[in-house]
């Protein structure tokens, strides 16, 4: 009996203390995105975008209940609102790494980017090159850019889904928390 009373008291204290816990102040948007840009690679960010795109496309094609991609699939509407903040991150990351990628030895870069299907990054490498003025690109890079964009466009449904599934790290990640926050 006494034990029950103590438990009730404990419950009250617990509830009161939780209700009164002050919410942690939101970090400034710039520092939050900086942190994310330091944490995630361009390839990771792009795979997250592939995952969300897959959810949106499957949701629009609808009809039947879309097949689950990962354990944390947000609803289509939510995925839709996450795409643009994610694109903003991808573009920022591209502008950070653009020069670095271009400084890579040409042979190495071409070899790495030609195997883009493995990392599901054909599109983002192509976009990276697309963002550079053609006058600064070597003919080999222009050809590579077109090839990368073509490869991305030609991805089969199955391959896209496989790529989307590579984003397993996304569930519960700081990136997911950021996209889900009120002002990403």
């Amino acid at each position, binding site marked *: 009996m006494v034990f029950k009373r103590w438990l009730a008291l404990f419950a009250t204290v617990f509830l009161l203390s939780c209700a009164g816990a002050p919410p942690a102040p939101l970090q400034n948007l710039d520092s939050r995105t900086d942190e994310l840009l330091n944490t995630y690679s361009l390839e990771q960010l792009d795979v997250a975008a592939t995952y969300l795109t897959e959810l949106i496309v499957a949701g*629009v094609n609808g009809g039947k209940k879309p097949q689950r991609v990962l354990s944390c699939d947000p609803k289509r509407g939510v995925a839709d609102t996450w795409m643009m903040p994610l694109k903003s991150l991808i573009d920022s990351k591209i502008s950070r790494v653009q020069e670095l990628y271009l400084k890579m030895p040409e042979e190495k870069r071409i070899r790495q980017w030609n195997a883009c299907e493995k990392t599901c990054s054909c599109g983002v490498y192509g976009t990276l090159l697309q963002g550079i003025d053609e006058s600064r690109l070597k003919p080999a890079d222009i050809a590579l850019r077109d090839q990368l964009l073509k490869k991305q466009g030609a991805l089969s449904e199955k391959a896209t889904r496989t790529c989307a599934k590579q984003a397993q790290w996304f569930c519960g990640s700081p990136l997911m928390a950021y996209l889900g926050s009120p002002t990403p």
Partner: protein
Amino acid sequence: MSSKFGRIIAGLLTAIFLASCASYQPTSRGIASTDEEQLMELHFQALINGQAPEQEMIDYIDRLVNLLILTNKDIATFEKELDAKIAIRKKNSRAVIEEPLASKTYTKLLKKWKLKDRYTAEIAYFYLRCLEMRTDKSLSNAEHQRIKHIQQNTATYLANTQDLQRVELQELMTKLSEVFTAFVQAYKEDYAAKHGGVVPPVDDTDAASGFGQALFGSTTDLYAYIKTHNTTTYTPSTPADQKRQAEFISTIDQDLGLIEDPDRDVQSVQDLTCKDGKQICISTGEAGNIVGKVFPKGVWAFTFDDGPAKSTTNMLAALASYSDNVNPHAKATFFQLANAAPKFPDTVKAQFDAGYPLENHSFTHPDLAKSSVNRVHEINDSNVVLTKEYQKIQSDYVIQYFRCPYGSCYAPKVPAVRQMIADQKQVHVYWRIDSLDWKLLNGPKVSALVTKQMQLLDHGVILMHDIHPTTIDAVKLVLAWMKDQNNNKNAKYKMVTIPEAVDLVNGAH
């Protein structure tokens, strides 16, 4: 002994939980949505399993709807009040008034938007759950009837309060489709049970439809509503329903005075924006953010961002060759970057010659929500540069619209940016369909995504980018599909520019 033991245990537990509470962090919106759903589900179950579930549910939803109506009214009032403050501040920057975007009014407005979302989500959730439960064969006939009544009531409320549009249409369509599949299955099983395991001889669709309607009559009401969802008012088809609607509206009017709302302490202010019943105007509120939800039925505004670029010429060629029974020629609006337009003077001229409005999309395409961005440069300076460029071709040209890169100032996220846009006497343009062309980089895939949504959503703004060659392929395919719909399938997909859409919406009032 047991008292001492209890104290020790409780003390320990309290300490552990207090420690865990101290590190409590608010969950983010996306992740919390699951918890919110769980709460709504608990509430739903409590109502369904109550003493008088049907009445309890109706009373509860009644209250939610009333709160929603009040919230809508408050939002309108707060928006007017905020616009009034902004107007005073514009006229006299030294006026002794609260800084509008740091004012209590703005805080209240944000709060009310949040409430509105919550109420609407809850009503929609209950509605969808009812719909779902009606496919549950383990329930008795009486339970089915009860759920059916609750669902019908929810649907009526949603329709009557003009908020069904806020429920994700796509979600409803998916849900309906699931329900329909369940009808088909149930029909087959029912038939087989009655006919010794024989497969139904007639077409599944028709038979299941009849079977489904007999069991779940009101899905047809919802189909009817979805067909006409562009209208903001639900018009009942029978005199009895019309009477019920009139009674309902008068009940709501009476109820308005009964519901207490702690935030309703606003004094009426002069309406300084959206005069003469206009729905779109320069404003930091919803009226100053074009999404396309208020466009007339079948009206679509194609918009292209991030240009001009090399590929823009091909886009213009794709658009130039288009005409159908509804559209004598294609129409589009281009949101351009100030660091790109001066590099492509011939393209800009060609766009003017073709009659496409050119609008502002910032200087360098940054995320304007970031405070490190030079917003004056991106919003004001870009306006100067673009205007100068455009006025080389048309001397009296004025930029009327602005679209934030990444849609990052979709109200109410970045009020300061929205204020800067309004100060430039421009209206912000968002979108209803995102083509995801930048990611898909494939004409047929982008086209499929756009046309499917066009069929579902019926009207609005479409977002594309004229800098991707694959988007040109997509546009060609979308136009080919639209031509087929308009010329051969009696559809009426009408293309408009953003200024034309605004005239259509505002002119109608």
